[in-house]
């Protein structure tokens, strides 16, 4: 893996700042935009997957038990999952830091 963006010096940059490697958007940590994170209440969750379908960043995945959780590396905390959840089992919780 190449240096993170914070470690790159001006000499490390490609001519004209082109991105020569395909698919490297996955390295981009959109999770640090987040001010609130989704928390699931498994007692209310019916495992319907509506949150998974509506997540605009595909940051929600299914666990082995069939419930759902967010990958906080990518989750921006937009709250669409909580809005769309049929049983209202998702709460948006303030990030501490």
């Amino acid at each position, binding site marked *: 893996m190449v240096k993170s*963006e*914070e470690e*790159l*010096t*001006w*000499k*490390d*940059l*490609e*001519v*004209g*700042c*082109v*991105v*020569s490697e*395909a698919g490297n958007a996955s390295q981009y940590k959109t999770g640090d935009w987040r001010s609130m994170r989704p928390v699931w209440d498994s007692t209310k969750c019916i495992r319907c997957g509506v949150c998974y379908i509506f997540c605009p960043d595909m940051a929600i995945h299914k666990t082995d038990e069939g419930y759902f959780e967010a990958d906080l590396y990518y989750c921006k905390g937009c709250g669409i999952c909580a809005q769309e959840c049929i049983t209202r089992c998702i709460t948006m919780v303030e990030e501490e830091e």
Partner: protein
Amino acid sequence: MGERVGIEVSLAAAEAVKMANVDVIAAYPITPQTHIVEHLSELVADGELDAEFIPVESEHSAMSVCCGSSAVGARTFTCTSSQGLALMNEIVFIAASLRLPIVMILANRSMSGPLSIWNDHTDVMSIRDCGWIQVFTENGQEVFDHVMFAFRVAESASVSLPIIINLDGFVLTHVIEPIEFWDDETVKKYLPDFKPVNQLHPDNPVTMGAFGLPSIFTEAKKAQNEALIQAKPEILKAWKEMGDLVGRHYQPVETYHAEGSETVFLTMGSFGETVSVAVDELRNQGKSVGQIKLRLWRPFPFDEFREAVRGIKRIIVLDRAVSFGGPGGPVASEIRSVLYQEENMPTITNFLCGFAGRDVTAQDYIAMYEQAEQMAQGRVRQEDYIIYGVRE
């Protein structure tokens, strides 16, 4: 060597672009650039030049097309003036930061208003910091030679930057001069095929013009600045090799009787030749006067300039643009800044003149010299700048 022909400078410039075997021309007509692109469109329409001529609906589109065609690896040319450059402005900066080696001829014309079509340097000074290599030419031969030079330097792998060739509108674009054309063999020897550093190609996809966060932007700008500074060795090499091939030797800073003179005029562009006439006349009168011509404006030739002014007491800087409410003309401001840390810094006398085609004759330069002398002797107050010839 090629033929020497009497031809309008604009047509010669277009012929030079043709000889450079350009692939794409995207331009919108604007006075006084018109004859250059008109002639290119004729050459393409008549089948004399195998290139795409893209008649866009504005200069904003012209420069956008140029970015696209240069990015896929096509040798790309455009040409504009004044308001056209202003409309291109947004994309001009992008072309430099994407490191796309586009060649632009800028037929210098005043920025409106009042609406004017005539020549001065307010257009090019408005994009001073756009990141392009910028050179000035004094006559038609220099324009022709610098078309070849521009493609060669811009496209060289160590540079990969766009370049502007400045020539004065009307006083150069619309005059007929004897110009020595290059023969095809010389062009071939001087100008290799364009091999882009980065290329948009389906076999090897890249992203150009991506978003840059605050965490990377400072590094991106440092890299861009270094690229422009580091273009200079290639610029010098291209001039040297041109000298060897065609016998005309260009320098970033050129001098005329400057060494050992007390006073020098500093000129850029076509004023240079008239000033040389004034210098001859003043020297005949026994005055210690010379001339420095700044050919390379960006990257600024610091070493060559400081060397050229060593021992000189006064520089009369001629500016063809106003920095409204500022410390003088844009050229004089830079010259003061370049020399500020020098020991024995010469006095800078700044005349703003020749706005929007107002003629400045050799007699006018002699009058400027005399006014500068009076200031030197304390008989007239030393001003930061003087708008020469203005009716009070």
